């Protein structure tokens, strides 16, 4: 009797240990990523949050100033609003164009059977070129006297403008250059298109559903999660726009391309005001987060996620 009792005791203990092991193992496997996240993402993030409450020169005394950085940014710094406005303008044009153009390119590639591999690579290639190389190419394209763009325009008799020198055109030039990298978005949407079972279209075709309705009522809803995903990542990358503006226009002319990220960058590395720059980053973070949440809430009503009804499934089985 005692023996049996002892036996179940160790049995239970062993089961418990096994269960602990089973629950810990997955975390061990992802631990390299977790450590990386803690040290290189979450750590700096919290650190920068702390920084934003300090007057934090690169060299010299650090003093706690509370919300002073934020207050002066909102009330005493016209450049903050100016840069925010430029960035919002940029995002408002870049994001829809990025998604719509990627979507149509993906549709075309999806239906193209001839040399589809070549086209896929060709469209994706710009996305793998590093920012500096990309900017070099585009500064050559946009060059007033020798640029490819104005040369092409001259062929059809148009005297090309000074793309990077005109405050109204510079931002357009940057939008175009940014859209050049839409291959990544396109590839995501193409994958989504390929994942839609072709029988859905065949069933619709047999029932006489016209092509436009198949697009509207099958393709778009089935692609919904991908569209929302690319929508949010596009917003994020729009708000982070830095490289192209920094290298192509240096924020000019007349500050017309002085994006928000550049404003933060200059506060940190030109004016060496780390606390102020950190506060700027956090404002941007909150804006992007809020936008993402709005998009997700708004999309929940009409986007269909494959796994969404799991719970109801369980209810039915119960």
């Amino acid at each position, binding site marked *: 009797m005692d023996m049996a009792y002892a036996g179940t005791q160790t049995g239970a203990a062993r089961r418990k240990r096994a269960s602990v092991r089973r629950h810990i193992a997955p975390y061990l496997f992802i631990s390299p990523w977790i450590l990386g996240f803690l040290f290189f993402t979450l750590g700096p993030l919290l650190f920068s949050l702390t920084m934003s409450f300090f007057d934090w020169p690169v060299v010299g005394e650090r003093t706690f100033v509370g919300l002073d950085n934020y207050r002066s940014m909102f009330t005493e710094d016209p450049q903050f609003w100016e840069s925010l406005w430029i960035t919002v303008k940029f995002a408002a044009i870049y994001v829809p164009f990025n998604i719509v153009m990627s979507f149509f390119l993906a549709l075309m590639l999806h239906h193209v059977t001839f040399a589809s591999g070549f086209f896929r690579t060709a469209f994706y290639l710009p996305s793998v070129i590093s920012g500096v190389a990309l900017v070099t190419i585009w500064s050559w394209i946009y060059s007033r006297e020798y640029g490819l763009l104005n040369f092409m325009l001259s062929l059809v008799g148009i005297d090309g403008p000074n793309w990077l020198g005109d405050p109204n055109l510079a931002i357009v030039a940057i939008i175009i250059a940014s859209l050049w990298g839409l291959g990544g978005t396109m590839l995501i949407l193409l994958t989504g298109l390929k994942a839609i*079972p072709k029988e859905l279209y065949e*069933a619709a*075709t*047999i029932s006489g559903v016209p092509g436009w309705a198949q697009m509207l009522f099958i393709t778009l809803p*089935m692609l919904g999660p991908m569209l929302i995903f690319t929508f949010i990542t596009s917003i994020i990358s729009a708000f982070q726009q830095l490289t192209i503006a920094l290298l192509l226009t240096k924020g000019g002319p007349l500050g017309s391309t002085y994006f928000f990220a550049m404003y933060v960058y200059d506060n940190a590395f030109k004016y060496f005001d780390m606390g102020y720059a950190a506060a700027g980053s956090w404002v941007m973070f909150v804006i992007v987060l809020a936008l993402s949440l709005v998009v997700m809430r708004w999309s929940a009503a009409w986007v269909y996620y494959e796994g969404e*009804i799991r719970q109801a*499934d369980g209810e039915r089985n119960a």
Partner: protein
Amino acid sequence: MAAIRIENLCKGFGSLEVLKGIDLDIADGEFVCFLGPSGCGKSTLLRSIAGLENLDGGSIRLGERDITDLPSAKRDIAMVFQNYALYPHMNVRKNLSFGLALNGMKRDEIDRRVTNAAEVLRITELLNRKPRQLSGGQRQRVAIGRAIVREPKLFLLDEPLSNLDAGLRVTMRVELAALHERLAVTMIYVTHDQVEAMTLSDRVVVLDKGKVSQFGTPLELFYRPANLFVAGFIGSPRMNFVNANVADECETGLRLAGGGLARELSLDTLSPAPIGRDCPVTLGIRPNKLELTSPDEAHLAGNVRLVERLGTESHVHISLEGGGDLTAVVRGTHPVSTRERVHIRIPSEHCHLFDADGKAIERPLDAETRALINQEEGRGPRGPVLEERHA
């Protein structure tokens, strides 16, 4: 009205020829199965009828109309796909009504059809669910419902039961048969499962490598297989084949010897067999017709490899001494055991005979079987129509 006539239908994918000249004549109201091993072109043939494939040649008529070049939507057909192909983001009601609504049908007509189909298929209480919330059998019903609401002239079903578990498959099989009875519409059903084909169909098209191997009633296929392929494909356990040579021939029959045979075997044929002396032939005999017997009566001898006892019957797997394998089905209590040497008699009246090309040489059937086959031929849910057509 909705009879189908297919003539010399050809279809290939690149250099791969899939359908090699299909000719078929399917009567109005008939339930026809396309039966064949995986990859023989069943789905391709069905999809060609549906207008989902570009044909390389041939023609298809549905009723009075030539539909060869008609777009799918205008063919008056409905199709049920193997994976159901339900729209995952629409609830059941929307799945059923989607196609109708976009064809400009009136609201109340759509409602009437959807309600009606839902009642027939007993899915009324599921109308507001999404496909994800349904079990396999329920999804299957919705897929069939989407076909029913179209009120088509022709139903096409591509392995509709193959994703269901065994028990559900039997239930749905019965329901499908009842549905066909009720709708009285032409149905074509693709399957690789001979039990489904045999139990559901009025007639079965056996496909082999893109050609019609035989087209007939289930019993006809079983008792009068036109060739080695059909003989081997229909029936379980499958038919045994033994090689032999023609030793002698006369007006009414053949004498076979050699090959695997230890003793001569005389067979009568319906007409003088178009086959000469010394020609190789293949004997076919169903496992349940073989008899384990004494050495002096035996045509074959071999060793028992395995005995599978199923209760009412036992399957005896035998390695023949002349090479080759046999399966015999004997009564459940037969005392035969593994590694035993057995002697086998082939009752000549139950033999099928095939020439060197695998074509059947016709043999007389006993009166009972003949009567049964004739009876089945005249049957069908629309007997009178069938007769009219034959007349």
